[in-house]
């Protein structure tokens, strides 16, 4: 057990729980629970969205991949901003203008309410739970490595904090936890970046050449191929981050928390700026870890490279056993812990909205009884959280979570992205088309993962689908199924309401007010 780090973790949990107590007093109505009363400003929401993306997977994972495989680790951060420009151009303002609490609101606007809500809610819950398990497994492993606390209590403590934020504090607490963590993470990233640059004399040439010289690959460290991924794998991963990220429900629902479309686009703008700056810093940190850490650090960094950033912090602070080193690594570790807490809370909230607002209030009760929606949402959040914690504990610390992230992003890219885009832009689009697209994108993703190298029982080499991420197939199949379903169905009502959706989504006419009366 490491005392400094445990104290840093405890301090962080204390602050975020205080925020939750404050937020719980302001969270009564459904609009407050799901959308923070639409009171979040553009820059605040931009920070929160950036926080959703700057997860442990991107902070520790990307820096680790750059430490291990050099250039190949730089591909994922480079393409992720594509998703945020797509969100700004296609979704941000329209989500705010045409929806209330969930992605399904926008689809069901012009399509038949119950079937399309059920399908969208199912894919939202699936994405959230898969992503949640991936994050919780990562949390348990990380906390164990950083503090010495074992896997089971680490997962349970993380899960309980996450449930407290969501169940009591709703979107307001989730958003502020996310903002606090985003600021802390940007500070930690900047401190590490400046530390690396000071050690390399603010000379990028020194940084990159030393990194290459210290790596087993030599000059090839700065060229593609270091990870051993095939070209199809690289393209699939890039598509997952560039397209899938743009349709992640827990990111899209953030646009419901701002007062109007102007703040929605401003938040997307802030997110693009902040995430970009952060990802450029991860390059300095990842390559810097390779340039500065002694070769003996290799085994401690781990097979996934996840501990490259904390070890770099220890080195920059003065080395192992020094006060500065201990303090810096405690800070970076606590920030990494905070990113997990904040991201899992957002995931639980998106799933609870799909269950309470879509499935319960609109599919089961047909919109007749929405008074209890908030209560149902709190219960649903608790239920989903507990299920995810139990699955995580059953999977255990050695479970390969990389394919879970691939599956979640692929379902978002193949099932959610085509249906949402076409509902907003294609006049002829029908309910049958939407459901066909969602089901096809979802099934393709699951089948490709099952037949893929990550889980195929015969070993990675024998897998029938040789690529790790299913996006290369799931995205075209999702779009194709939307089109086929639409062409084959005789439904015409959707074209009339398309006029209304167009005017509403593009002008904000009749959009949900800032403080709705409930």
């Amino acid at each position, binding site marked *: 057990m490491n005392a400094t780090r445990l104290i840093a973790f405890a301090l962080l949990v204390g602050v975020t729980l205080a925020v939750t107590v404050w937020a719980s007093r302001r969270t009564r109505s459904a609009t407050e629970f799901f959308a923070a009363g639409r009171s979040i400003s553009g820059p605040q929401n931009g920070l929160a969205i950036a926080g959703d993306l700057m997860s442990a997977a991107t902070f520790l994972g990307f820096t680790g991949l750059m430490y291990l495989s050099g250039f190949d680790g730089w591909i994922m951060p480079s393409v992720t901003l594509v998703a945020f*420009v797509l969100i700004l151009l296609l979704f941000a303002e329209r989500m705010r203008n045409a929806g209330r609490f969930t992605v399904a609101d926008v689809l069901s606007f012009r399509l038949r309410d119950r079937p399309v809500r059920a399908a969208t809610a199912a894919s939202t819950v699936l994405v959230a739970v898969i992503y949640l398990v991936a994050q919780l497994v990562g949390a348990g492993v990380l906390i164990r490595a950083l503090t010495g606390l074992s896997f089971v209590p680490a997962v349970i403590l993380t899960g309980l904090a996450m449930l407290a934020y969501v169940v009591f504090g709703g979107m307001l607490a989730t958003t502020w936890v996310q903002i606090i963590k985003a600021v802390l993470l940007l500070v930690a990233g900047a401190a590490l970046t400046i530390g690396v640059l000071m050690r390399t004399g603010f000379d990028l*040439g020194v940084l990159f050449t030393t990194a290459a010289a210290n790596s087993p690959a030599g000059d090839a460290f700065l060229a593609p191929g270091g990870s051993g991924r095939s070209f199809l794998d690289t393209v699939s991963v890039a598509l997952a981050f560039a397209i899938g990220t743009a349709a992640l429900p827990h990111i899209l629902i953030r646009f419901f928390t701002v007062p109007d*479309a102007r703040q929605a686009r401003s938040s997307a703008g802030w997110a693009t700026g902040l995430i970009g700056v952060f990802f450029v810093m991860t390059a300095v940190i990842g390559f810097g870890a390779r340039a500065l850490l002694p070769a003996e650090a290799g085994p401690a960094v781990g097979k996934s490279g996840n501990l490259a950033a904390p070890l770099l912090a220890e080195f920059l602070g003065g080395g192992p056993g020094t006060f500065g080193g201990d303090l810096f690594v405690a800070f970076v570790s606590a920030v990494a812990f905070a990113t997990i807490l904040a991201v899992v809370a957002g995931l639980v909230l998106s799933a609870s909205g799909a269950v309470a607002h879509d499935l319960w209030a609109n599919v089961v009760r047909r919109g007749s009884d929405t008074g209890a929606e908030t209560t149902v949402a709190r219960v649903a959040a608790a239920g989903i959280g507990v299920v995810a914690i139990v699955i995580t504990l059953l999977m255990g610390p050695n479970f390969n979570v990389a394919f879970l992230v691939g599956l979640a992003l692929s379902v978002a890219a193949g099932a959610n992205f085509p249906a949402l885009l076409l509902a907003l832009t294609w006049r002829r689009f029908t309910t049958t088309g939407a459901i066909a697209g969602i089901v096809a994108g979802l099934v393709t993703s699951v089948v490709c993962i099952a037949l893929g190298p990550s889980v195929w029982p015969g070993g990675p080499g024998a897998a029938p689908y040789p690529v790790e991420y299913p996006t290369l197939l799931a995205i075209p199949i999702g779009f194709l199924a939307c089109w086929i379903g639409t062409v084959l169905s005789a439904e015409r009502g959707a074209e009339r309401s398309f006029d209304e959706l167009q005017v509403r989504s593009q002008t904000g006419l009749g959009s949900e007010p800032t403080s709705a009366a409930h």
Partner: protein
Amino acid sequence: MTRSQEVDWAALRASAPFQELVVRRGRFVRAASTLLLGWFAVFLVVIGAAPDFAGTVVFAGLSIGFLLGLSQFVLAWLLTWLYLRAANTRFAPLEDEVRALAGDAVAEGPEVAR
């Protein structure tokens, strides 16, 4: 489902300011998306088809592939800035015009149509 019946959405959609908004924003979104996804494709194709070229160090230890990756950030920031500027100066006034055509009752009403 009260107010949506009171507004003639088809007429609003056919109105001059809305049509202008759709044309202008649509043109911007199509051009920006094409550029964005095109440059994304160029990045991937260079990595896949010419890994040696991508690995060539241009200056200060920065390889062509690394700089192409960095250029994705620059393009994303540039398109974001251009869109925000266009939305605030050109699209927002048109949105206001359309909302004015419909009357303030719809935009301001606390009981919003669904």
